[in-house]
């Protein structure tokens, strides 16, 4: 854990994108119509009203209507639809 805090300290100094080195998910919302999650660890549940995605910080739950998985790859999941809630369940 010491190495983690050292990493964080260096990152604060050089202003490097944190998600890359700390292996954190990056969640991007475009209005209410699209959400993309990078650095995920697979989907747990998918129904048009609810999607749960596993990540390194816990489960991300997205609620909405008529949601579809626009594309699904090793690094990124893109979800389209009417998004209402984005929650992080630790």
């Amino acid at each position, binding site marked *: 854990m010491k190495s983690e805090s050292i990493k964080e300290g260096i990152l604060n100094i050089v202003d490097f994108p944190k998600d890359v080195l700390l292996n954190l998910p990056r969640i991007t919302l475009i209005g209410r119509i699209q959400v993309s999650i990078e650095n995920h660890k697979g989907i747990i549940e*998918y129904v048009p009203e609810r999607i749960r995605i596993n990540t390194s910080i816990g489960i991300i739950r997205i609620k909405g209507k008529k949601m*579809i998985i626009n594309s699904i790859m090793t690094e990124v999941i893109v979800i389209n639809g009417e998004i209402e809630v984005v929650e992080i369940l630790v």
Partner: protein
Amino acid sequence: MFAIKLWNFLKGYAIIKVEGLGIEKFLNLIITNNIYVWEVIRISNTAILAKISLRGFKEIQPYVKITKCRVNILAKKGLPFLILNLKKRKMLVLSALVCLILIYIFSTFIWTIEIRGIENNNLIAKQLKELGLKPGISKYNLDIHKIESQFLLNNNNISWIGINIKGTKALVKIVEKTKTKNPVEEDLPCNIIAKKDGLIQKITVLYGVAVKKPGDTVKAGDLIISGIIEKPNLETRFVKAKGEVIARTWYESYADIPLEKKEFVRTGNYLVVYNISIGNNNISISSKKNNFKHYDKISKVITNKYLPFVIYKDFYYETKQQIIKLTENEAENSALQLAMENINNFMSKEAEIINKKENVIILDGKIARANIILEVLENIGIEEKINYNEEVNIDQRNNN
């Protein structure tokens, strides 16, 4: 995103239906093995639709077994399947190819020739045809420069010709030579005479001998600058007289404007009638008939000039006779205007107005009569060719 979709289209993809309970597990397995799926839509609790690349589809079979799902292909899309379909319909492909080739071949010919800048198009078209520019000739066999120069050699009255080829159309632009305005040719001896009556104000002689001096009155046709130079002990010389004769001249004009006039005014009612004309035959399409007593008719052509028939759209505007009364003031003004316009038609444009007299009277309370007298300064000199023989004869007679 677009690039990926294009790539998928080129490589071909399938729409699959996955049924089973562990669909999320199945998706996770796929993505950890780098198989790309997109547009995943859940259609029921136990089924999804997804798109998958052809290569991916071959690789998912083991994971289907592990997760105990069932996979059906609903449709195959993309270029490889398109080609496969076309292979079954060889004639379609062949005729499409032939069509393209024909379009290309026909586009290398010239089909129409448009001539601009001259009125006698037929004659020009005929000459161009003889030189090789005619509908149906290949563009590549055409030596435009040669045709242009040969055309100019054949036609002396044309100063420039430009041939532009735009697609299958040859655009020929022609500029005619303008005729020179000098009534008397250069270097021919001439006199300058008065073209109208006037009082000479100023004479500027460039060549020749002034016969009249400022202050003289001249009548139309009087000699002002002579082109015959006679000096004692020297032979008589004939020159082209040149110079400017500024003289004071007068113009007078009358104009009448009646105070009451009858005019036809449009009432606002109108009728539209369509006519088709093929050759010399006219057929009216509209059932309405023109019942107006007095009307204006305006005809418009609404079809393209390349069609074999012409459709006219005729507007009939109903008109009504109306008596328009002018006030005395208005009538006087318009009478003056009319009189001035009359003068302007006669007067040369360089003339300088130095004095203007306007007079308007109302005759019998019905007609406004305007009278304008203008005093102007203008050049009244005009060249007149000297008739050699006559002059020589006169000289000889004098000598005798």
